């Protein structure tokens, strides 16, 4: 199959079904699940076909509305964006099974609105990885952000306040990005990424170029919650409705990291970004501190979901550090970690969703003896935890391995030490929970509503995607080699 517009349908089908969900799903709740699952399943199939085409025939450039680039908006599907499309659609489909169940329980009567935002967010994420236009990227970034503000604000209690803080921080990030684009436009007179990359190195304007790069990167760092700018993330992700967290947590930060890689490789070219050693070293130190602080803060949490949000912050440090190592191993590790971290985070958040569905809370106290109640869920949790720690043959091991190799190649020992320390902290974090869940005495747990030994597994709708994700963790781990040879090595620029 080689329809020339297929990649556009991957984006458009969720977008249109978002409208359909809003129109028909409001009165007829039966309509929501088929629309959501159907459109996302189409996206998965479409993106896999697109990826096959890209790998066989090379990068696709597509002009929307036949306005030729650099004037029109260009969509570019190279191996990296094709891989991201597959990742986004697969994660979204798996998460949506669980979200349908959680939304039914947590947001009765509001599911139609929830899934309208949900699908628009997914369409926006697809747009982000497709676009080849710097301003279009800003608009899509705001589409994804606005929908996630809405999704997070649908939660109970403090959710609205967390969402408001996210709005303020997210807008600062987006405005910084926009300012950077403004400076690039003044310098080059174009907004097309390939055109910018062609013109920018020929200009002799180091100060203005650096300013533009700084604004864009800081803007993206705010959006991805890179360490000193991370304060909004834990609250926003842990107060969101469970169904929203399952999809937003694995995808949003990772897609923003992808944008950073895209901007560094294809807009500014690495030669212009990594010019000042003190900047690169500063970012490396920030990444190292992000990793250590994220992990250390995770230790202090008494709630599983909140703990995971701090781990996300540490993982963002892994990826930013990997990119700023500016060598081939580091970049390979960072890109590989985008895939692996999405799947690991998805796995753990699906577990959280399943536990919340059954017992309403994931505070560490309430997890005592949960192995006996939800054995399959907790088996998947153990696998996800192993991947986070980096135990072979789960996928987490391989990306961490490449990041450490890259750190040694680049002589950034602070980064290597941070990675090792964070792995050790992850061991403590997860084994504490596994111990509690496996051996936790039920005598203490009896005052909980569900403190019985009776087996009370999550519903099949939540269990199936969870088991698939857990299996994927190992499958992706074993297919690391082909993934690097066939996809990632094509993206690493020459001279790295």
């Amino acid at each position: 199959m080689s329809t020339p517009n297929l990649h556009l349908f991957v984006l458009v089908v969720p977008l249109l079904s978002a409208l359909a969900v809003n129109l028909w799903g409001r009165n007829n709740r039966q309509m929501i699940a088929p629309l959501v699952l159907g459109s996302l399943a189409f996206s998965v199939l479409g993106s896999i076909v697109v990826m096959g085409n890209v790998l066989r025939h090379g990068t696709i450039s597509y002009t929307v509305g036949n306005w030729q680039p650099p004037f029109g908006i260009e969509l570019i599907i190279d191996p990296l964006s094709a891989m991201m499309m597959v990742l986004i659609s697969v994660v979204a489909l798996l998460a949506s099974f669980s979200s349908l169940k959680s939304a039914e329980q947590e947001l009765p009567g509001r599911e139609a609105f929830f899934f309208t935002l949900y699908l628009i967010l997914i369409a926006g994420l697809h747009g982000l990885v497709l676009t080849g236009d710097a301003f279009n990227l800003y608009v899509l970034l705001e589409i994804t952000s606005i929908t996630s503000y809405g999704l997070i604000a649908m939660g109970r209690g403090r959710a609205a306040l967390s969402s408001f803080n996210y709005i303020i921080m997210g807008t600062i990030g987006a405005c910084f990005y926009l300012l950077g684009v403004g400076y690039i436009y003044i310098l080059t007179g174009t907004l097309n990424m390939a055109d910018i990359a062609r013109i920018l190195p020929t200009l002799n304007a180091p100060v203005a170029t650096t300013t533009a790069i700084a604004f864009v990167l800081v803007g993206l760092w705010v959006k991805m919650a890179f360490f000193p700018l991370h304060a909004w993330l834990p609250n926003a992700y842990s107060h969101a409705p469970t169904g929203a967290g399952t999809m937003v947590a694995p995808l949003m930060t990772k897609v923003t990291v992808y944008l950073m890689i895209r901007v560094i490789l294809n807009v500014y070219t690495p030669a212009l970004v990594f010019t000042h050693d003190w900047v690169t070293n500063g970012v490396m130190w920030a990444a190292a501190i992000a990793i250590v602080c994220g992990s250390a803060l995770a230790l202090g949490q008494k709630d599983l979901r909140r703990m995971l949000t701090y781990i996300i912050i540490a993982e963002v440090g892994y990826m930013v550090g990997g990119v700023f190592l500016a060598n081939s191993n580091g970049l390979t590790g960072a890109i590989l970690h985008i895939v692996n971290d999405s799947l690991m985070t998805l796995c753990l958040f699906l577990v959280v969703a399943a536990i919340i569905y059954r017992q309403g809370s994931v505070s560490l106290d309430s997890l005592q003896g949960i192995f006996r109640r939800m054995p399959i869920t907790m088996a998947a949790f153990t696998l996800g935890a192993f991947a986070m720690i980096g135990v072979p043959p789960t996928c987490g091991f391989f990306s961490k391995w490449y990041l450490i190799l890259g750190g040694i190649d680049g002589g950034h020992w602070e980064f290597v030490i941070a990675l090792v320390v964070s792995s050790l902290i992850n061991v403590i974090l997860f084994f504490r929970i596994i111990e509690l869940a496996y051996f936790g005495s039920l005598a203490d747990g009896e005052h909980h509503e569900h403190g019985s030994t009776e087996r009370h597994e999550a519903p099949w709708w939540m269990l199936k995607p969870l088991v698939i994700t857990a299996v994927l963790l190992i499958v992706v781990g074993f297919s690391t080699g082909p993934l690097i040879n066939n996809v990632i090595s094509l993206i690493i620029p020459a001279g790295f």
Partner: protein
Amino acid sequence: MEAVISEIVAKYNYWIYVVLMMIGFYAMIGKRNLVKKLLGMNIFQTAIILFFVSIGVKKGGGIPIVDKYQALAGGVDAATVVNPLPHVLMLTAIVVGVSVTGVALAVLIRIHEEFGTLEEDEILEKLRQ
């Protein structure tokens, strides 16, 4: 002093946008009232809109509406019209800004329902209890 003043006067549009942006930034970070934070956010966005609009301006440039047949026959002298592209970009940015403000106002209503106040200190006080 002379040099500084002439520098400021020569690039006054950038100075105005920087000052406006800092006012917005201060309101977002320093103010304790959530509505004031939102207003600060709007000022911040407006500063960037001003920045973009000002970079399209040319001295003596007219509005960029030209006669189609004349343009096809003789082309357009770029110096006679202002650059419309930044202005058009800002139309989109204004739409984005309005949507964000709309969502933020809706969220503020939710916060007010939940806590009965929009003062950050009072909300934090209630959360601590």
